[in-house]
């Protein structure tokens, strides 16, 4: 008998084993939902799959009686817009500041301690400050995401920049490059794929800040919706929304990975 650590599942088995936990969860859910429904027809805690499908149909394919919008899609649109704006701003700041500090010691000296200190502030703790400073509109929600993920991005890019082999920078100097040219042609192109990696890692936190901001002060968005219908214990809407958010997060991450593979094949071959 071979050792357990050497036993590899075949491809088919591996795929099957991967699906089983998901099926199990669905089964356990269905089973418990059935039990509760048998006891109380009106139970709202574990809605059946038909009820959830009905919830989705009402939210996504019927115009709202109040506003006439298809709320599910409107919520998705607002949330994605906030998330994308926040991430884009944070990535731009992270790239510029991180790169400058990583490449130029005279910039990193005054900046590094400050960034470390800022990154230790829990972003949620300054959410009230943001609301006071930027009002309750879109800006404060986007700012929460920016402030939440920016320090991480800056520190990560700074470190990645400093990790580039010293030999490359010396070589670039012997090729006659000045500081600006070396940053533009040698450092920047190698840092962009690393920025995509860092953004992928920070997406989880970005979603957290988005939903928190929407839950507290908003009139639309995915986070707003699930916190709104919580008052009516509408699990038939909350659960599909959570699945949808998860799906969006997964898709975004997957797209970034694909994009990076297509644009920077050399980066992925190197690893």
């Amino acid at each position, binding site marked *: 008998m071979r050792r357990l650590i050497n036993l590899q599942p075949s491809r088919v088995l591996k795929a099957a084993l991967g699906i089983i936990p998901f099926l199990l969860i669905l089964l356990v859910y269905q089973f418990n939902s059935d039990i509760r429904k048998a006891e109380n027809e009106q139970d709202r805690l574990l809605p059946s799959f038909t009820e959830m499908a009905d919830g989705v149909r009402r939210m996504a394919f019927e115009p709202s009686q109040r506003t006439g919008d298809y709320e599910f899609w409107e919520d998705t649109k607002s949330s994605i817009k906030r998330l994308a704006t926040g991430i884009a701003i944070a990535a731009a700041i992270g790239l510029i500041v991180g790169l400058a500090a990583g490449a130029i010691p005279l910039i990193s000296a005054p900046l590094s301690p400050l960034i470390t200190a800022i990154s230790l502030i829990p972003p949620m703790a300054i959410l009230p400050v943001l609301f006071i400073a930027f009002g309750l509109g879109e800006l404060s929600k986007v700012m929460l995401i920016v402030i939440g993920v920016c320090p991480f991005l800056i520190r990560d890019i700074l470190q990645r920049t400093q990790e580039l*082999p010293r*030999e*490359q920078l*010396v*070589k*670039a*100097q*012997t*090729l*006659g*490059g*000045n500081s*600006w*040219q070396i940053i*533009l*042609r*040698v450092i920047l*192109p*190698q840092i962009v794929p690393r920025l995509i990696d860092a953004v992928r890692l920070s997406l989880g936190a970005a979603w957290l800040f988005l939903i928190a901001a929407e839950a507290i002060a908003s009139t639309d968005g995915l986070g707003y919706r699930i916190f709104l219908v919580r008052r009516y214990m509408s699990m038939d809407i909350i659960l599909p929304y959570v699945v949808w958010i998860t799906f969006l997060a997964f898709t975004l991450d997957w797209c970034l990975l694909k994009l990076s593979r297509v644009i*920077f*094949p*050399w*980066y992925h*071959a*190197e690893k």
Partner: protein
Amino acid sequence: MSAFIQLDHLSKHYRDNVVLENLNCEVREGEFVTLVGASGCGKSTFLRLLLGTESVSSGQLLMAGKPIEQEPSPDRGIVFQRYSVFPHLNVRENVVLGIEFVESKWLGRLFGKRRKDALAQADELLAAVGLEQARFKYPHELSGGMQQRLALAQALIKRPKILLLDEPFGALDPGIRKEMHELVMGLWRQYGLTIFMVTHDLKEGFELGTRLWVFDKVRVDPHAPNRFGSTITYDLSLNSKDKALKIAALDEIKGRLHTADRTE
């Protein structure tokens, strides 16, 4: 011909750690100097002094009569053992970069006809190092030997006066190393370079250069190994055709290096 590179009572130390001590030598233009010695003997430190990434602690290191610039510059090309090429550029772009840095101050990038001319120059060099077939490949698609060929082409496009090689073939298979030796010798003659090459391999040092320097410590304090630095203990001209003499010298140096290794 007068001295091109001049070492005048050159010493290098980091705080209490003396690495190089009292080096005195002259090198003429067009010489091929190989630097050998046990690990930690300061031969790579000396190369970095020539490169300008380290500075001399006392004494002088002169190039054409002037102190060598304290920063890497195009007149001194370099090939490291690893990481000499840029992974995000293909072979051609790697070589052309040296031209683009000069001709395009702000973008570091050429377009149109100027780019075409630059590419033609690069292709010429790539042919010289035997990489014309791999022009459009990226470094990760190249073998170790081909990457070093590329690094050589990259350095040569600047027409450097000095070429510095820091164990350039240390990571290559013996067969490929042989090919690279021939290539370097050819380029050295063709471009009239002055070469300094650090190597681990004593035999390589003997085969390639016109001159061999052995770095070793003359004085050793067993209680404070860093008190005394290395110096050039052998300065051997390899031009002589007398093979027996060379072999005798090789054996002697080998013996010396071994005993030095043991006492350390």
